[in-house]
């Protein structure tokens, strides 16, 4: 089972990312859950959202304490939140950053497998706004094979975003090719 935690700021679409991931997995016939961190949310404040994806039925209603995948939508969160908290052995952290992954590893002490992409840059160029949730989903699919089918995720994006879907899909696919991965220490 994939257990995913998204870190973002209120308004950046972390909850939407979790939902899109679940919709794509369900469309593939898998089981999935997507849920926000329960409670009130404020624009700009750090928020988290969760998803589970499994080939078997998911009978678990607990919070995700030990994610296998962490996706960080906003680079500024690295200074505020220990994003690899509880990460399972063998897990992956996917970061939105333009910096060198080894430098990130050194500065923030992240030992885990690390995938990085400059999602701010991609989103600004392709979408015209620095809303990185769809870009980071592209990076996540590049970092973790077999979780969801790219095509089904693109269909989920298409359904959700209507007339701005094309730009989001472009950002998503571009992130897939621009993601850099460094293995765990």
């Amino acid at each position, binding site marked *: 089972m994939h257990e995913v935690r998204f870190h973002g700021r209120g308004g950046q679409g972390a909850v939407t990312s*979790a*939902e899109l991931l*679940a*919709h794509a997995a*369900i*469309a593939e*016939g898998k*089981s*999935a*859950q*997507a*849920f*926000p961190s*329960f*409670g*009130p949310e404020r624009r700009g404040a750090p928020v988290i959202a969760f998803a589970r994806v499994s080939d078997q039925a*998911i*009978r*678990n*209603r*607990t*919070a995700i*304490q030990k994610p296998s995948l962490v996706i960080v939508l906003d680079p500024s969160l690295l200074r505020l939140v220990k994003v690899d908290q509880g990460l399972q052995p063998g897990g992956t952290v996917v970061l939105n950053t333009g910096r060198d992954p080894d430098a990130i590893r050194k500065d923030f002490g992240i030992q885990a497998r690390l995938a990085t992409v400059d999602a701010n840059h991609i989103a600004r160029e392709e979408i015209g706004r620095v809303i990185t949730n769809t870009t980071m989903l592209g990076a996540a699919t590049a970092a973790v094979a077999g979780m969801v089918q790219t095509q089904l995720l693109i269909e989920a994006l298409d359904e959700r975003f209507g007339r701005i879907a094309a730009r989001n899909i472009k950002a998503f696919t571009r992130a897939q090719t621009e993601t850099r991965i460094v293995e765990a220490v």
Partner: protein
Amino acid sequence: MEKRIGLEASIAVAEVVGLCDADVISAYPITPQTHIVEHLSEMVADGELQAAFVPVESEHSAMSVCCGTVAAGARTFTATSSQGLALMHEILFIVSALRLPVVMAVANRSLSGPISIWNDHSDVMAERDIGWVQIFAENAQEALDLTIWGFRLAEDQRVSLPVAVNFDGFILTHTIEPVLMPDRESVQAFLPAFEPLMRLDVDQPITMGPVGIPDIYTEAKKAHQEVLTQSYGPIVETLDAFAKSFGRQYLPVETYCADDAEVLLLTMGALGETAMTAVDQRREKGDKIGLVRLRLWRPFPFDDLIRAVGKVPVLGVMDRAISPGGPSPVASEVKATFYQQEQRPKVVEFTVGLGGRDTPLSDFDGMFDTLLAVHRGGEIPKPTIIGLRE
């Protein structure tokens, strides 16, 4: 044809209220129920659902509107949570005493104070005696299925009582998961047109809800007690009918791995699913643990519970609410069930998951260990709050 889609439980419930062709929805938004009525108001505004959406200034008014519209023969739905349910309190008794078949979704949430928007069952437990049929869902599928079924049962003329479908706030209301969404034709085939026992009609005026003087009040209460108790038969019958139509069988009390169990844990609501996973893990280690999942809260299914427990000597009971100064509500009912039975289990009381406190698998392990210790001859511990920070 059913369609397998990913939906939040709240949206799934709103969608099936549409498939049931509700005539009136009256509600006041309250977290974590809000998505249900938000979605219904969109459906009405977009013309997808030909219904009257009556926005009101409070839940007291919402339930009062429901009272009037059902009395006039309109299929009526509302949804609420926590303080909203508490604010409906006095009208809830009137709706059931008047035999008015409202269907209400309750997105279970704790009651203040302290102020909490998070999940437990204290809202519905404070409404134990409202005289409604009260049932619990464990997942989004059950929430939508039991909503469809709720209209069928409520409007059954042998019953003609309001039905509350409980499903856990946030844990279910805010979670997207796969559901099988029935099509309109099969829902309509399952759900006959609403023919009320009596109808408010300006051309044939009647009085509903007059004063119950001492000469009649006791008899009215006896009649209410009887009709709710006797609704058990139609409940089982209509759940069977639901299974025939949709292929999903629900029972007043269900079990999991109970056949050879040495100890059982009783759950109600969404944590039943986590409990199943916890049982699976312990079964792999050879521990003979099973579950009793209480689905029907009112009328209380005494005989089903006795059958489900059988000769198992130790029964843990999980309560999601407390009754300060007294036993927790579900444990109290369970103990009352067995008190006069020759064969009765030792009952161990746990209070779990109050006000959104997460209940991880390790908490279930702790409860199972306690039950197994009692099974090995240990003393029955005093009622325990699980997951307490000390």
